[in-house]
C-alpha cells in the first residue's frame, strides 16, 4: 500500500510518500500564495522522485494549516497528531516533540505508540517562531541558513529582552549600533526564541528523548539554545521538516488498512 502525506504550512508545503511503512520519497516547496496549488505541485514533485503516478496512491492524508484546501486528500488530520506519529517512526524513544515552524510553535507529549498525551501551541504571536528568525536575519543582512553557523562562534550572546518581535527588531538595531558583533546578536536571538518556546512547553513537561522538528530545527544555534533552556539533550531527526507529512502518510496507511478491512 502506497500512501502520501501532504503537510501544507503557512511557509512551506511538504509531501511524503510511504510504501509499506517506509519512506519512499519526499519534496519540500514554499507555499506561496495558493495553498491548493502548492499542494498539487509539491505532491507532483514527490511522485516524480518516487517514480510513481497519482493513481498509485492508495490514500492521501492532508495536514497543516492548509489541510482543508487539499482537494485530492482523502482525509485531513491535525498536524500535532501527525508530527507525533512521524517523530515516533523516526526516533522510537521520542517522548517530547518541540516543533518550531514558520508561523507557530508547538510542544507535544508523545507516548511509546506514537499517540499524543498532551500538547501546547502558540499560533498567536510571532516571537518563538521561524518568522521571528526571518525578521532578525533581515536586520542583520544574513541568509536564514547562515544564522546557525554564525551563532556558534559567539562567546558572549546578547540578551534580547523584548518579548515582541517588532520591538525586538528595534532592540537589535540599537544593539548593533552599540557595536555588538553579529555572532553575539544572532546567538542572542536564538536564545530568545528558545526561551519563549521552552516556557510554553512547561505545561506539557519535557521527557527524554526530546526531539526537535520543523524547518527551524536545521538551525544548530537554536537547537543548542533549546537544549540549554530545557536542561536536556535534544535530538534532531535527519529530515526535521517533513515529520508532519511523514506522520500523515503513516496515519494514511492505518486508515487505508481500516478501509480495506471494512470493504471486505
Amino acid at each position, binding site marked *: 500500500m502506497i500512501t502520501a502525506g501532504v503537510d501544507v504550512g503557512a511557509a512551506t508545503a511538504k509531501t511524503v510518500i510511504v510504501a509499506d511503512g517506509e519512506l519512499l520519497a519526499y519534496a519540500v516547496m514554499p507555499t506561496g500564495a495558493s495553498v491548493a496549488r502548492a499542494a498539487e505541485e509539491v505532491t507532483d514533485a514527490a511522485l516524480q522522485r518516487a517514480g510513481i503516478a497519482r493513481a498509485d496512491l492508495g490514500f492521501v492524508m492532508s495536514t497543516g494549516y492548509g489541510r482543508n484546501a487539499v482537494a485530492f486528500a482523502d482525509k485531513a488530520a491535525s498536524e500535532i497528531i501527525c508530527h507525533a506519529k512521524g517523530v515516533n517512526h523516526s526516533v522510537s524513544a521520542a517522548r517530547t516533540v518541540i516543533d518550531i515552524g514558520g508561523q507557530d510553535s508547538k510542544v507535544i507529549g508523545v507516548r511509546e505508540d506514537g499517540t499524543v498525551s498532551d500538547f501546547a501551541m502558540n499560533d498567536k504571536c510571532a516571537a518563538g517562531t521561524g518568522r521571528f528568525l526571518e525578521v532578525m536575519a533581515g536586520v542583520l543582512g544574513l541568509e536564514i541558513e547562515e544564522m546557525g553557523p554564525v551563532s556558534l562562534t559567539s562567546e558572549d550572546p546578547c540578551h534580547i529582552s*523584548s*518579548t515582541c518581535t517588532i520591538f525586538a527588531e528595534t532592540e537589535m538595531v540599537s544593539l548593533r549600533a552599540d557595536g555588538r558583533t553579529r555572532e553575539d546578536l544572532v546567538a542572542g536571538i536564538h536564545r530568545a526564541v528558545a526561551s519563549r518556546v521552552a*516556557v510554553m512547553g*512547561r505545561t506539557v513537561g519535557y521527557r527524554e528523548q526530546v526531539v526537535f522538528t520543523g524547518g527551524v530545527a536545521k538551525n544548530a544555534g537554536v537547537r543548542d539554545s533549546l537544549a540549554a533552556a530545557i536542561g536536556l539533550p535534544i535530538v534532531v531527526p535527519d529530515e526535521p521538516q517533513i515529520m508532519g507529512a511523514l506522520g500523515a502518510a503513516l496515519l494514511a496507511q492505518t486508515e487505508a488498512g481500516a478501509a480495506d478491512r471494512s470493504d471486505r
Partner: protein
Amino acid sequence: MEATKRLNDHLATRVTELGRLRQNGVKLVGYAPGGYMPEELVYASGAVPVGLIRGGDPEPVAESAAYIPRFVDTFCRSQIGYRMLGEEPLYQMLDLFVVPVTDHNVKAIADCFDFFANDNVFRFGVPHQKDEHAFDYYVEGLRQFKNKLEEFTGNKIDDGKLREAISLCNRMRSLLKEISLLRRSEQPPISSYDFVRLNHASYVADKTVLVDVLESVLKELKNKPASGQKGPRLLLTGSTLAMGDYKVPEMLEQAGASIVVEEFAEGMRHYWENVEPNGDLIEALADRYFRRREPPAWFRPSREHVDYLIRLAGDFDVDGVVWYQLLYRSSYDIQAYYFEKTLRDQLNIPMLKLESDYDVSERGPLRTRIETFVEIVRSGGGR
C-alpha cells in the same frame, strides 16, 4: 549618609543571618504585602516576619507562565515566579507563608504557593468594607492567625511579648512618618528614591537595626541645610511599588521632578497610624491595621480611598499625581479613570497614568511619558 551605608551593609548579610537564625530554630514567616498582616504577632511568637515584596524583574514574570495564565496582576505573577524559579534565597527559606486575602490577585499567589510549591500557607480574610461586622471578622481572622503562630512555633504569645513588639513597630512607623513628613517642606531633604529604599528595607531588615538607622537618618535630615530639588512636586500612587522596581521613581527624579509622597497598597509599608495598645491587644491591632488604616482601592465604597489621596495631595502641596500601576489590577485600572476627573475637579492638578508588566522594553516609552508630564507640570500647564 553614614546611616544608610550601615543599613546596606546589614542588608547585604541579612539573608545569611536569617539562615543562621533558622538553623537555631527560629521560624521565618513570609507574608504577602498589602498592609493587613500585623508583624507584631509574628515577633511575639518568637518568629521573624519577612515581607515578600521583590519585583520589577521580567524573568520571574516569564517563569510564572507555566503556572498561571498571563492576565493576572504582574506583581502576583512575579511572586509565583520567584518562588518557582528558586533563585531568590529568601523565598526558599520560608517556614510559613501568610496571606491576608484582600483581592483575588493575592489569592492567586496563595493558591500557587499551596499547590505548586507545596508550602505551608495560612490565609485569613480582609473584608472589603469597614462596618462593625467586618471589624469582628477581621479580629476573628487575627485570632486564628495567633493560634496558628502559637501552634507553629510552639511558643505562647502573651500580652507582654506583644506589647514589646507593638512598641518596636510603633517606633519604626513613627520614625518613617517623621522622615516622610520632612518632605512637606519646600525643599524636601530626602529623595523619594532614598525614602522608598528605607521603607522597603523595613520588610527584611532586623527591626532594632532599622530603628537605629532611622533615628540617625532623621537626626541628620533635620540638621541638613535646605538643599533638595525644587522641581515640580508629585504624589506617586498606584497598586504596587515593589522592592527592585525603581524605574519610575528614578526616571521621575531624573526628569527633575520631586516625589514628595508615595501611596501604594503593596510594597510600601504604611506608617501613618500606630497601634494603641489598650484593652484587648488583638482588637487594638485590628483597630490600627483594619479600622484606622487608609483603605486601598479594593474597598467599597472607594470614596474613602479617593478622599485620602486628595487629602495627601493637599497636605503635601503637590503639583501633579503620577498613577503607576501594574497590568491587570482591575480595581486600580478602573479607579484611575474616575480619580483623574475627581483630581481635576477638586484640586485642579493633572495626573499621568503609567502601566507596567515588568517588561524591559517599557523603559523608552515610560521615559517619554514621564519627561513630557514633568515638563507640562513645570510650566504650570495641565491646570
